[in-house]
C-alpha cells in the first residue's frame, strides 16, 4: 500500500547508538528517558498489606510481608533493558532480591519447569525456570538509588533484563511454579512465549 512513503525530514525522537551499537539488539533504538508503558491504571498497594508469595509446585508455599522482604539479602545490578516497542535503555541501575535467593526459601517440586508471575492490576507473564534462575531475574524495589516509582512498577517489579521488558512484570506480587510454560497477558495475544531481544523474538512464531 503506502509502504514506501517517507515523511520528509522525519527521524523520530531516537538517539544514535554511536559507539554503543554492539549493545543494541536488532530492530531497537536507544532512548535516554525511561518511557512509561501502561495497559491500565497504576495500582496503589498499601505497603502494610503488600505480600510476596511463592506457590504452585512447591512443597510448602511461602509469603513475605513488605518488612520481611526488606530483610532478604539484596543485590545491586546494572543492566541494559529492551522493550518490544523498540526502545533500549543502557545501564539501568536496580536494587532487589534475586529469584535464586527467593527460591532458597522453598523446595521446588521436580515437575516445576516454568513460573507465572502475578501482579496487582491483573497482569501476568510466564518464564521458564531456565530464564529465572542463576542471577537472571530479580524482584527489584529500587531504581537509580530511589524507591521504585509506581508508574515504573513500584513498590516492586520483576526485572528479567535478558528478555523483552514485558517479562519484567510491574507491581509483581507472586510467582507460581507450574509444570508447563503457559502464556501470560501479552504472550496469549500474539507475543512470543519467551521474548529474547537478541533473537528478535517479538511475536509468536518469530
Amino acid at each position, binding site marked *: *500500500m*503506502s509502504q514506501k*512513503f*517517507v515523511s*520528509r*525530514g*522525519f527521524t*523520530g*525522537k531516537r538517539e544514535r547508538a554511536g559507539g554503543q551499537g554492539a549493545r543494541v539488539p536488532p530492530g531497537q533504538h536507544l532512548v535516554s528517558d525511561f518511557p512509561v508503558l501502561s495497559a491500565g491504571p497504576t495500582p496503589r498497594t498499601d505497603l502494610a498489606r503488600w505480600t510476596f508469595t511463592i506457590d504452585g509446585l512447591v512443597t510448602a508455599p511461602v509469603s513475605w510481608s513488605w518488612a520481611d522482604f526488606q530483610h532478604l539479602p539484596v543485590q545491586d545490578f546494572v543492566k541494559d533493558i529492551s522493550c518490544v516497542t*523498540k526502545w533500549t535503555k543502557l545501564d539501568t541501575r536496580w536494587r532487589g532480591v534475586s529469584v535464586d535467593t527467593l527460591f532458597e526459601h522453598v523446595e521446588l517440586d521436580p515437575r516445576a519447569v516454568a513460573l507465572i508471575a502475578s501482579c496487582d492490576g491483573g497482569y501476568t507473564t510466564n518464564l521458564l525456570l531456565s530464564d529465572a534462575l542463576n542471577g537472571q531475574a530479580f524482584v527489584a524495589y529500587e531504581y537509580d538509588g530511589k524507591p521504585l516509582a509506581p508508574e515504573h512498577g513500584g513498590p516492586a517489579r520483576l526485572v528479567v533484563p535478558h528478555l523483552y521488558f514485558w517479562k519484567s512484570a510491574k507491581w509483581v506480587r507472586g510467582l507460581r511454579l507450574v509444570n508447563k510454560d503457559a502464556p501470560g497477558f501479552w504472550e496469549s495475544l500474539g507475543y512470543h512465549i519467551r521474548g529474547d531481544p537478541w533473537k528478535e523474538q517479538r511475536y509468536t512464531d518469530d
Partner: protein
Amino acid sequence: MRRPLEWQIATVKAIAQETAQVKTITLVLPGWTAHRAGQHYDVRLTAADGYQAQRSYSIASPPERPGEVDLTVERIPDGEVSPYLHDVLVVGDAVEVRGPVGGYFVWEASSGGPLLLVAGGSGVVPLMAMLRHRAAAGAKVPARLLYSSRTLEDVIYRQELEALASRDGLEVFHTLTRGQPKGWTGYARRIDQPMLAEVSGPLGTAALAFICGPTALVETTASALVQLGLAQERVRTERFGPTGT
C-alpha cells in the same frame, strides 16, 4: 456506503500561526469525505528506515468546507510528532493521514442541545469544529463554551470566538489559570464545580456536554457535571493524552 478507511497522502496547503505554541495546518485530501464535527484524523510519520510514529489530531474546520481540513496542533516541547509538524513541515509537504474517524465524540446540528462545551488548551479544537458547524448550518441551539487557557496569549481562535459569540445563542467564558491581564473580569482559576455550576446552570440538566483536553481537566469536569445532574451518557469526553506540562 462510505469508502473503506485507508491511509492517504495529504498535501500541506497552508500553515498559520495561532498562538506562540499553536499552528493550524491546512491539508488537501485526495480522498476527502465529509466529516462530522468532533471527528479526528490519524497522522502517521515514517522515517527513511521505516520507523513510524502515529498520533490523532482533531479536525478544526467545519464539514461545510469540501476537499480540505484544518488541523490545529499545539507544540509539545519534548514530544515526537507535534515538534515535527511545527518545525519541519512546510507548505507543499506530503503527510500520511487516515480519517475522518471517531463517531462517538460528534455533534451535528441535528443532535440538538442545549450544548455545553468545556475545553482545556488545544482541547478547544474539536469543539471549535462544532461551533463552526453550528454557525455554518445556521443552528440556533443554545450553546456555552467554557475554555481554560494558561494566559490570554495562549487562547486559540480568540477573535473568531468573539465574533461567533456576538451571534445568536452562543456564550463564551474564559478562565486563565497562569496569569491574567490588568482588568481581567473572567475566571482566573482551574475549572472546578462552582465554575461549572455557574456556566452550565442556565442550560439546565438536559444539556449535552462535550469535554476535551488534558486528562485531569476532562476527569474533573466530567464528574462535576454528573454531580450537577447531567446524565452520564450525555457527557462525552475526549482525552488528548500527555501534554508534558
